[in-house]
Structures are given as C-alpha cells and as structure tokens.
C-alpha cells in the first residue's frame, strides 16, 4: 500500500457529526485525497454534488441530521460515482439496493477507510 493511496482523488464526505467529519477529512487528506465538503446536511451534500463536475468517490454517513442519505447515494450511483457508507448501522438496516455497497464501520481507522475506497476508484 503506497503512503498516499488516494493521491489526487476528489472524495466527497457527508457526515453531520463535526468531530467525525473532521476526522474523516484528516484521514482522507493524509491518504492524499482532496476532500469535497465535508457536508453536514443532505441539502449541503446535494448542492455540492450539483456544483462539482468531478467526484471520484464518496464517504456517506447514513443518518444525517435525522435524514437518510439514500437519495444522495442514488444520485451518486446515477453519476457512476462509487461510495462507501460510514455507519454504526448493521447491514440489514440498509435498503436492499445498497446491500453490496462497502461500509466503513464506526469507529473507523484512517487506513481502513483508504483501503475500502481505493479499489472502488477506477484508473
């Protein structure tokens, strides 16, 4: 594993908990990624996606200020953007269409995050 496996990747972070968003940002930055966001609400996330032409990957908290993140996930899937869920929920709590999506369980390790995202990103 190279020191910066996500070198040059533009990664969207959606996470409402400030401390965790900050940690995710730090971990991704350490892995060489450029962080889009972090977005603390679904609304902010949607605005970010609309504004950004290039998103290589995304890390999504499942429950964002009481709203489920799934519409954002659907939008990303439509755009062909790979994503992972960062969640405390068990697999079964996710809708069936996301059953195969990778998850980063909280509390997470920075290197695990990079390991999970790297294979998703093409090229």
């Amino acid at each position, binding site marked *: 594993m190279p020191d910066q496996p996500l070198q040059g990747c533009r990664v969207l972070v959606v996470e409402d908990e400030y401390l965790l968003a900050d940690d995710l940002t730090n971990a991704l930055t350490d892995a060489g990624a450029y962080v889009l966001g972090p977005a603390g609400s679904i609304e902010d996330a949607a605005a970010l996606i609309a504004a950004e032409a290039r998103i290589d990957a995304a890390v999504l908290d499942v*429950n964002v200020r009481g709203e489920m993140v799934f519409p954002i996930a659907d939008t990303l899937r439509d755009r062909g953007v790979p994503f992972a869920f960062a969640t405390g929920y068990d697999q079964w709590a996710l809708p069936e269409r996301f059953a195969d999506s990778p998850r980063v369980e*909280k*509390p*997470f390790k920075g290197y695990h995050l990079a390991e999970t995202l790297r294979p998703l990103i093409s090229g």
Partner: protein
Amino acid sequence: MADRAGARHDDRLKLRDENEQLRTALESALENNALLTDDNERLGRRIALLSNQLKAVQAARPSTNSDPVVVERQSQAEEELRVAFEELQVLTEELEVANTSLHQTNLELDARVEERTLQIREINSALRAAETSLRTIANLVPDLLWRANASGEADWFNQRWFEYTGNEPRESSGRGWIDAIHPLDRKKARDAWAAAVKSGTSYQREDLICDEAGNYRWFLVRAEPTRDEHNQITSWFAAGTDIHEQRTALEALRQSELRFRTMVEGMPQLVWRAIDGGQWTWCSPQWSAFTGQSGGASCAMGWLDAFHPADRPLAQRAWAMAQETGTLEFEGRILQAAEQRFRHHRTRALPVRDGQGRTLEWLGTSTDVDDIIQLQQHQAVLVDELQHRTRNLMAVVQSITTRTVRRSSTLENFQACIDDRLSALARVQGLLSRREGGLRVPFDALIREELSAHVGLEKGCSSQVTTEGPPGVRLRSALVQTLALGLHELATNAVKYGALAKPEGHLRVAWRVEDAGPQEQRLFIDWRETGVTDLPKDEAQPRGGGYGRELIERALPYQLGAHTSYGFENDGLHCTIEVNVPTDEPRLETSHA
C-alpha cells in the same frame, strides 16, 4: 276412563230398577197368597161346621126314615154340605194353582236375584280391581298426583306427593298444596289456580316445589277438570312432573351460551364459525362492526371480501391445508370499514369435533396484530438507532481522544484532560438517557449541570456565577452533545484561566428565546466573563489548546447551523451562540423521525 265409569253407573241403575220390580212382584204374589190362604181357612172352618151339623142330624134320626121333616132337614143339610165341599174344592184348587204360581214366581225370583247378585259382585270386583290398579299406578308413577273437587279444594294425593313433600294429608288438602311452592312464586301459583278453577280451563305452571329436606326442585304442574254428562265439572286431576334436571340443564346451557356470547362479544378478537373449507356460518358482532360486513354477507365465502385482495389466495391456501393439519393459521390484512384502512390480523381456527372425531365445525378468531407489528417495527428502529448512537459515540470518544493526545504535552496532562472530557460526555449521556417519556433536554438543566461540575451552585448561582434565562427551553437531542462539550470547554477554561480562576472574576450566562417561524424558536446564549486581568496576549495561541474554541466556532455552526462568536473584551471572554430550537414536543424523538 270417564266413559267406562259412566257405563258402570248406568248398569248399576238398571240393576236397581230390576230388583225393585222383582221385589214389587214378589210382594204382590205373597199378598195374593195370603188372601187365598185366608179364604181357604175360612172355607175349611165352614166345612167342618157343616160336617158336624150333618153328623148330629144323622145321629138323631131313627133307624128308618119315617119322619119327613127330619128327612127334609137332612137332605137340606147334605145339600149345603155338598155345595160347601164343592166350594172348598174350587178354592183348594185355586189355592193350589196360586201356590204353584207363587212357587214358580219365587223360583224365578231367586234365580234372577242370584243372577243379579253375581253380576253385581262381578262389577264390584271389577271396580275394586280397577280402583286398586289405579291407586297402584298413581303410586307407581314418579309424578306427584292429586285430585281436587269442583271448587278446587284438594281431597286426594298419591303416595309420591306425601313422600316428596313430607306433608301430612291435612297440610296438603284444600289449597294447602300451594304452600309447597317456593314463596316467591306462591302467590302467582295461587292466583293461577284460582283463575283456572273459576274459568274451568287447564292449569299449567312451572314451579319450584319444596321437598321434605327443604330443597326446591322444578316441577311442571298441570291440572285438567273432569266433567259429568251435563258438562259440569265434578273434579280436577293434577299432576306435577319433575323437570328439575331438564330445566337446570337447560338453564346451565342458557347460562353457558350467555357466557360464551358475553365472552365472544366482549373480547377484542373477531370471532366466527365455519364449516369445512372455510364456509362461514356465523360471525360475531365485532366482525360486522370492524368490517362493516353484515352477518349474512360474511357467510359462506363472503368474509374473503373483507381481506386485502393480495392476501385472499393465502387465506384460501390456509383453509385447504387446514383440512389436513387440523388447524388454521394465517396472517392477512382486513379492511377496517370506519377508517378505510387495512389492519394486519392473525387468523386462527380449530375444529370442533364430536365423540367420533368428526369435524362438526370450525371456531375461529381474527386478532388485530397491526399495533404489535407497528411496535415491532418501531422497536427495530429504536434498536437500530441505539446501535447507531453507540457507534457514533464511540467514534466521538475516539476523535476526542485523538485530539487530546495531539494537544497534550505530558501523559499526566492527557490523563487530566481526557478524564474531564469523558466526564462531560458521560454527563450529557446521563441527561439524554434520563429524559422522561422522550422529552427534550431543557437548556437550563444542561448549563447548570455543566457549571455544577466545576463550581458549587445554588439555584444555578454562586458568588462568582450568575445564570439568567427562561426555564424549559428544550433542545434538539442532536444539539445537546456538541453544545454540552462546547460549554464544558468554556467552563474548564474559565476555571483554569478565566473568570473562575481568581476570586474577583465573575461569570454570567444569560439566554433568551425569540420566535423564528412555525414551531421554531431562536435561542440566544450569552457567555460573559468579567474581572479577568491576565487576558491572553495572542489569541492565535489559545491556552486551552483551542479545543473549546474549535467546538464553538466550527462544530456548532457545522453541525447545527448555529451562529457563534468567540472573542475577548477588555475584562474577559465574551462568547455568543444562536441556535434554533423546536417548540413542539416529539412523542418519541429518534434521528429517523
């Protein structure tokens, strides 16, 4: 029986008439006989007299009939005697004839008397036999029997009556038998009997009759009048039949049915009966009330219409299987007519079998499990939520630890700092978990709990601390943790470096709310420290490591859309936080809500 008795009565009358005729005939024959005897005796006496006279005349005459006078007299006397003899002869003949006739009559009479006596004896014996068998039958039947005269006064009872009631004949006679009836019904029975006797119509009642031991048993009492040839009532015959077992069994059945119905109609389940194949024969009122389907409409396969179309095949399959397995069980949605909403029901039925194990019918219930299913779903959400929060909390702990490590110069310093922060986190978890009925945490409770961890407070104040603001401003749960951590850092810094580090310093925390749209209020928090002299020279190098400031300036706005300010006046820190708070109380707040 009345006809036969009447016939016997007629026979007796005829016999009596005949006897009377015979007696008259005999008496007249005897009288005749006596007259003839008298005549005979009289003639006999006359003949004897004439004969004596004739002998005297013959003795007085000389040997020869010389005297013509004497001869004359003699012949005259002889003539008279001859006439008298002839007369006697006739009379005697008549007498003989009369005697013979009398004898004949007597013989005939004897024969007829004998014949009639025999007949009477036979009839009497038959009557006696009939009466005996009647009495035997009367005492043999289990019924209580009695007889009353035309005025309704009882004058005869069978043995069973006395055995059952334990009464003496004099107690029961007249209308005394009515006293054996239960006191509550006695008057009604007495009135009914009087009415029957008066109108001459049948009497019938069901009454409790007291036995010898004082126990009451149900009897059907019936009485009918008997009438003579002029249709006049001559007597009443009454019979009391013990119907206690039937009546109590019927009563028990009625009670049992009543209990069943009360139970069925009282229970929340929808109850129904069906025959094999799910053909309903009956449904409880609840079914009709719930589905709006009349009892008739639900019968046969009508009930299927109340089920959700998608669940109907399932219901039919369940019935097909029930024949083999002997139980019916399936879940399906039933339309609630009033709300036009389908509610989940668990439907179950068991067969009712006879002694030979043949299925007579099915007794089934449909139980509303909609609430349970919703609760189960809700519970799953809560469990899910709990897990989510726990994992999030662990992530927060991890994050705080990482930051504290990064900003600690020594292990001791780290130890003190992390203890403090974990305690603050624990306090806020306590506040969140102690919420009663899911109520939101009020700001006054949060601020006082946090300040109390650092300084002694009385009613939220001390010599160095003032808190001012309306109570009961309730915070979104998502806000509580971050706000508490921020306030904790502010309080820690105040104790270490600010207003609470020296006796001359003072901290005032004030808050107020303003309306901010529907179901929203804006909470303004003002944290002002005064009396602090040694303010930090360089704000870029905060003495608390800047963690508190980061939470206030970045975390609260990021996480909660709060507006915050953090800066120093000339005599201490001034920090403001504005954040929206809800005005409604959630029923049960979850982050899914």
